[in-house]
């Protein structure tokens, strides 16, 4: 377990010198922990709400993020997460953090959410973003839930400006494929599909689902964006290094991997768009 585990002290309670030092620091910066009427102790138990909350919360307002936020393979904000206490998403541990608000994913932690609500903890659930409108909507919702609407509006405006700059010129749309473990691909109506489209690439499998390796080889797209591989190895990921795929890609400029920037609907996905655009330009 890393540092920052265990229960973070609640401001105003006597929890030894560390809490006192924190209190002094908070007073010194003369910044309120949270706007009036907004929840003062927010806990996030979902990788994507972790990142939105870390971007939007007032100092001290976000008490804990999920342990996944510290995994560099999934989280685009590892450094920020290291500054926060982490939880493993268990209802009991989250309840002990004494939150005023819990941010959760809609699909992954139903039982935990149900239990927390029965214990009287307010929970806001967020569906994973499937397109850029969802990204904007989720930013606005997290902002509203934290009482940080201004910060959310600024973040959305920055997102739109950067996206517009990346999208700038339209030209030839080279064919590209997204290829993940177990031969899965992401269709046009997925977040990854929208990232691909924003970079000016055309998805060869707009319906998504399984893309048999044979079809990928026959179609021979100009760019194949493969899922990043995880430690420990698995049979599922072996297809990403299949000799036939390696032969297809041999001698081509390397395509970026679908890494942590692709996972969540946050402004970090623009970094993925940027790398894809650079890769597209090397194709011209």
């Amino acid at each position, binding site marked *: 377990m890393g540092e920052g585990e265990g229960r973070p002290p609640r401001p105003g309670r006597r929890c030894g010198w560390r809490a006192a030092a924190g209190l002094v620091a908070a007073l010194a910066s003369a910044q309120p922990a949270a706007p009036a009427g907004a929840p003062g102790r927010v806990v996030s138990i979902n990788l994507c709400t972790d990142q939105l909350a870390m971007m939007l919360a007032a100092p001290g307002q976000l008490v804990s993020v999920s342990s996944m936020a510290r995994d560099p393979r999934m989280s685009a904000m590892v450094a920020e997460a290291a500054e926060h206490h982490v939880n493993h998403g268990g209802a009991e541990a989250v309840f002990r953090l004494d939150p005023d608000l819990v941010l959760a994913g809609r699909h992954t932690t139903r039982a935990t959410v149900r239990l927390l609500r029965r214990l009287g903890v307010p929970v806001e659930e967020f569906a994973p973003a499937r397109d850029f409108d969802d990204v904007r909507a989720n930013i606005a919702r997290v902002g509203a839930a934290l009482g940080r609407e201004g910060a959310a509006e600024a973040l959305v405006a920055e997102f739109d400006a950067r996206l517009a700059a990346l999208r700038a010129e339209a030209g030839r749309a080279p064919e590209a494929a997204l290829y993940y*473990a*177990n*031969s899965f691909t992401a269709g046009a109506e997925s977040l990854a599909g929208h990232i691909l489209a924003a970079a000016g690439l055309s998805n060869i499998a707009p319906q998504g*689902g*399984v893309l*048999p*390796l*044979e*079809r990928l*080889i*026959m179609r*021979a797209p100009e760019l194949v964006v493969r899922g990043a591989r*995880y*430690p*420990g*190895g*698995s*049979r*599922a*990921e*072996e*297809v990403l290094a*299949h*000799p*036939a795929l390696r*032969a*297809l890609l041999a001698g081509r400029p390397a395509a970026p991997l679908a890494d942590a920037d692709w996972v969540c609907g946050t402004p970090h996905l623009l970094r993925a768009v940027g790398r894809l655009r650079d890769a597209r330009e090397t194709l011209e």
Partner: protein
Amino acid sequence: MTRHALLLATLALVMLGLFAASLLIGPAGLGVGESLAALFRGEGRAETLVMREIRLPRAGLAVFVGAALGLSGAALQGYLRNPLAEPGLIGVTGAAGLGAVVAIQTGLSAALALALPGMALIAAVLAVLLLLGLAGPRGGAFTLILAGIAISAFTSALTALVLNLSPNPFAATEMMFWLMGSLADRSMTHLALAAPFVVLGAAMLIPLGRGLDALTLGEDAAEALGIGLSRLRLMLVLGVAASVGAATAVTGAVGFVGLVVPHLLRPLTGAQPSRLLVASGLGGAAMVLMADIAVRLIAPERDLKLGVLTALVGAPFFLHLIWRTRREGV
């Protein structure tokens, strides 16, 4: 003898036909002429990759894996004089899968390619030795199956444990593959890893025919005929472990092939285990090729697992065998 030769020739022809069919069927939808031109003359870059790097290893692995399972099943049934002996049912396949999972999860197989079949083989040897130790050399049906169930349950629990503890997010879904087996997207690398061990195992098992024939008369009679039983046993253990271990390491556990094939062929070979060995190897190859073709025809986009089909055919057959065994009071 001529009748036996005819049977072997027929089985070989069936296998070759299925091998060709396996090469010509796939989601890329290539025409026959196109496929053959790509396979033999390398016409068309993408077509050649599909034929030589995807379909050829797939069909080749089906042959080697099927042969390994069929031959091992026939050899085990002959040695134990028990119709229920089968690499999957008695836990050898499960143990080999465990060895392979450990090799992959510890990163050993990435560092040293031979570690994958090697670990599977070692685990399979241990499982066979444990089984023979528990069930005794005569291997009564009851103790054999009980010991096999215990070993299977233990190895699948350990496999699940290793996968649960893995940092890899896909590890949890890997269980499906190791329990049911699949030939999807295997490569020449896998074929090159498994085939030598399967051949080695077959080279150890096929010469055991004479000894297995003598064993049908009982152990004393076999020894009187000059059969070295301890050597026979050692060769059997190593032969089964090498072929089943290597096959399982690259395709997962494909069940029931070693059970069904020897039974289907026994009426055609007479009661001689020696004749059943090669025939079962060919028959096993044909059965796995058939199952793998069916997998691609039934649900081409779903990666239906190979073991699902062999179990759908094999399990009712197994129940029928148990029913008959009970009636005959064996």
